[in-house]
C-alpha cells in the first residue's frame, strides 16, 4: 500500500474521529439546549394551558362555565332586587300595604307577557323565558337612569339613597349584559335555539309607548322596579335549575 495513502488515511481517520467526537459533543450540547428551551416554553404553554380559557370553540369546559355564569347572573339579580327593596322601603315614610291600591297606573312593563306563577314559568320555553328576562332588563335601563338623575337633583334624599339609585341603574345595565352572554352561551351549546331576537336589537323590545314611564312618579317607579327585579331573579333561577341544576338548586 502506498505509504502516502496510508498516512493520508490515518490522518483522515484521526480527523474524522476528532470531528465525530466534537460533533457528538456539540450535538449533545445542542440537544440539551433544545430540550431546555422546549421545556421552558412548554412550561409556559402548559401553565397557560393548565387554565384553558373556555372559548366558544372549546368543548369540555362548557357546562361548568355556564353554571358559573348563571350563578354570577343570579347573584347579580339578587343584589339588584335587594337594593330596589331597600330603596323602596326607605323611600317613603310608610310602605303601607294599601299603597298598592294607590298605584295610579300600571307599570310600563305590564304589557310584557310574563309568567305569573311557577308552573307557568316552568312550562314556558327556555328561549321565551330568556327573552322575557331580556325584555324586562332592557325596559328598565332608561327609566332607572332618569330616576337616578332626578333624585340626584332632589336634595330631599341623602347620599345613601342616591348612591343606591346609581348602583341600581348600573346593575340593570350589567345584568342585561350578563344575561345576554348567558343566552349566547346557551345558543352556542345548542340548549336554546337562535330565535332570541332581543340580542339583535334592543329597540325591538321597547314598547311603542316608551314614554309612558316618564309619567310615573318616583314611588311607582320604585315599586314597579322592585316587582320586576323580583321577576327577573325568579326567572333566572328557574332557568338555571332547569338547565344546569347540579350546582346549588
Amino acid at each position: 500500500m502506498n505509504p502516502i495513502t496510508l498516512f493520508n488515511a490515518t490522518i483522515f481517520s484521526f480527523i474524522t474521529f476528532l470531528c465525530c467526537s466534537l460533533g457528538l459533543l456539540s450535538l449533545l450540547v445542542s440537544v440539551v439546549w433544545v430540550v431546555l428551551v422546549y421545556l421552558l416554553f412548554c412550561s409556559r404553554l402548559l401553565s397557560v394551558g393548565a387554565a384553558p380559557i373556555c372559548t366558544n370553540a372549546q368543548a369540555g369546559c362548557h357546562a361548568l362555565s355556564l353554571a358559573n355564569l348563571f350563578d354570577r347572573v343570579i347573584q347579580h339579580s339578587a343584589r339588584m332586587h335587594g337594593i330596589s327593596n331597600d330603596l323602596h322601603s326607605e323611600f317613603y315614610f310608610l310602605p303601607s300595604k294599601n299603597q298598592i291600591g294607590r298605584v295610579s297606573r300600571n307599570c310600563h312593563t305590564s304589557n310584557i307577557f310574563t309568567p305569573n306563577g311557577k308552573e307557568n314559568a316552568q312550562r314556558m320555553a327556555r328561549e321565551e323565558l330568556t327573552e322575557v328576562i331580556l325584555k324586562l332588563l332592557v325596559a328598565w335601563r332608561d327609566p332607572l337612569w332618569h330616576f337616578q338623575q332626578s333624585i340626584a337633583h332632589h336634595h330631599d334624599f341623602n347620599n345613601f339613597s342616591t348612591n343606591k339609585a346609581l348602583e341600581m341603574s348600573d346593575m340593570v345595565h350589567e345584568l342585561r349584559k350578563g344575561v345576554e352572554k348567558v343566552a349566547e352561551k346557551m345558543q352556542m351549546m345548542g340548549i336554546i335555539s337562535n330565535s332570541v331576537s332581543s340580542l339583535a336589537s334592543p329597540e325591538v323590545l321597547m314598547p311603542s309607548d316608551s314614554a309612558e314611564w316618564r309619567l310615573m312618579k318616583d314611588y311607582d317607579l320604585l315599586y314597579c322596579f322592585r316587582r320586576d327585579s323580583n321577576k327577573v331573579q325568579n326567572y333566572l333561577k328557574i332557568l338555571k335549575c332547569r338547565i344546569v341544576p347540579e350546582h346549588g338548586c
Partner: protein
Amino acid sequence: MSVSSSSSSSSSSTSNLLLLLLVSSLDWLSTRGSALAMDHMTSSAPVGPHFTECVSREQETFRCWWSPGGFHNLSSPGALRVFYLKKDSPTSEWKECPEYSHLKRECFFDVNHTSVWVPYCMQLRGQNNVTYLDEDYCFTVENIVRPDPPVSLNWTLLNISPSGLSYDVMVTWEPPPSADVGAGWMRIEYEIQYTERNTSNWEALEMQPHTQQTIYGLQIGKEYEVHIRCRMQAFVKFGEFSDSVFIQVTEIPSQDSNVPFKLALIFGVLGILILILLIGISQQPRLMMILLPPVPAPKIKGIDPELLKKGKLDELNFILSGGGMGGLSTYAPDFYQDEPWVEFIEVDAEDADAAEKEENQGSDTQRLLDLPQPVSHHMNIGCANAVSFPDDDSGRASCYDPDLHDQDTLMLMATLLPGQPEAGEDSFDVVESAPVIERSERPLMQTQTGGPQTWVNTDFYAQVSNVMPSGGVVLSPGQQLRLQESTSATEDEAQKKGKGSEDSEVKAQKELQFQLLVVDPEGSGYTTESNARQISTPPSTPMPGSGYQTIHPQPVETKPAATAENNQSPYILPDSPQSQFFAPVADYTVVQEVDSQHSLLLNPPPRQSPPPCLPHHPAKALPAMPVGYVTPDLLGNLSP
C-alpha cells in the same frame, strides 16, 4: 278712621293667613295621620269587619282570614263575603272568594287563582253588598309570603374547648317541604335563635341561606333551646318558628389527651423492666461485656487471681520471683480462660524467649541506657525504665512523673542496677548537695524473663553504699528482702505519685521499706520516682528494701556478666550480692524527717544478725554507716 280700617284690614289679613296656615296644616296632618289612623282604627274604635291577614306559604297559594270585629251579628257564617280584584288587566272585576272555610273564617286561593306579581285587592261585603272597609286590602303575593318553618332540626357536637367549659355545636336542618327550593322558585334564608332553657333571652344568629350553622360558645352543663325560622330573601315577612330542640352536653372527663401519655408511660416502664430482666437472665458474657464492662483489676497472666487479692503477697512474691514454677513463664496456667475479654498487655519490644535470664541484665541495661528503647512493662514494671511509657492504662497508676528529669532518673536507675556488682573501683565521691541516702532501694528493674514478670532475674535490692559526686551511686550487694505487711499499705500510698518527695518520705516513715530515694545529683531534691513506681506495682513486685521475697539466686549470677558491660558507665557498681544478707553496714532505717536541705534524718538501724560476708566485694567493705544523720562531709569517712 283710616287707621282703624287699615288696622282692621291688616288684622283680618293676618287672621286669614293664620287660618289658612291652620287649615293647611290640619290637612297635611290629616293626610299623614290617616294612614296611622288606619292602623289604630282596629284597636281603638269599635272595629268593623276586616281582614286580619293574608298569607302565602309557598308563593303558589294563599289564604286570607277575616274577622267580623265588633259586629257580632256578622259573625255567623255567610254573613260576610270576600271579594277580590285581580288587577292583571284593565278589565278585571270583583270576584268572590273561590273557596271558603267558614269555620276558620278563611278564604283560600288555590294555584289556579293565584298569580304572583299581580296586585290583589280584597273586600269584605255583607249580604246586601255593603262594603265594610274604607280601603281595600291590597297586596301582591310575593310580599305576603311566609315560608313554613324548616324541618329536621338536628345538632351535633363539634368540639369541646381545651378548658372543658364550653363547646361548639353544628345545627342542621332541611328547608320546608312546601317551599320549592329545588326549582329555584323560592330562595330562603334562615335564622336560628337559641336561649338557655326556661329563659326567654333569645339570641339570634345571622341570617344565611345555607341549611347548617354553627353555634359557638355554649357552656357545658347548661341546657339550651334552639329553634329556627325562615323568610324569602330580600323580603320582610318571616315564617313561623320551628319546634325547639334541646342541646345539653354534660361534663365529659377529658381523657383523650391523657390516655396516650399514660399508655406511653406504661409501655416505657414495662419495656425497661423487660430489658433489665433480660439482661439479668441472659448473663451472656458478650452482653455483659457490652452493658457492664468489667472494671479493670489487677490481672497478671499466669498468676491465680486469688493471689492478687489482699493479703497474699507472700505467695505472689514467691511466684513472681520465680519460685516454684520457675517464675512467671508461659507455662503458667491460664487463670482467665473464662474471661475472654481480659487483655494482658504484652510486651511489644522483645520476645519472651529472647529475654533469658542471662541476657536480661544486658538487655535491661541496654534498655536503660538507650533511652528510646521501649521498655517492657507490665504492671510490675517500674516505670522508671520507660521513656515512652505505655499509654494504655490497665488499672495501675501512671508511672510517669513529669517532674523528674528523665535522663537523670535513668542514669540513676542504671546505676542502681543490682547485679552489676562490678568489682569496680569504689570511688566514693561526695555529693555536695545531695543528701545522703542510707538505704537505697533499687528501683525495680524490669527484666524480661520468659514471662511478663521480669523481676525475677535481677537482684532487686541493693543498698547504695555511697554516692559519688558525679552522681553515681555505689551499691552494696543485694539483700534479702522480707515481705512486710505494710507493703500493701505503702503501695497504696505510693499510688499518689507525682507528689513531692516529702510526701513519700513522710509515708516512708511508717514503713520500713520505703526508704529510698534516688539521689538527684543536681540536688533538685528527692525523687521518689523509683519508689513510687515500685510502690505502685502490686505487692508482687519486690519492694525496695522491704522484706520481699528474695530474688531468685539465679539471676544473681548473671549479673556479673551484665555488669561487666557497665564498666563503661561512670558509675561504679558494686558486685551483685551473692549472699542475700544484708550488708553489714547497710540496713534499713526509718526516715525520721527531712530537713530543709533535703537531708534525711534516719532512725538507728535495727540490728542485723548475720554479718554479711562479702567475699566478692572487697571493695564493698563499707564502713559501718553512721547512725543518724549523715552529712556530706562525713561521706568521706565512708570511703573504704
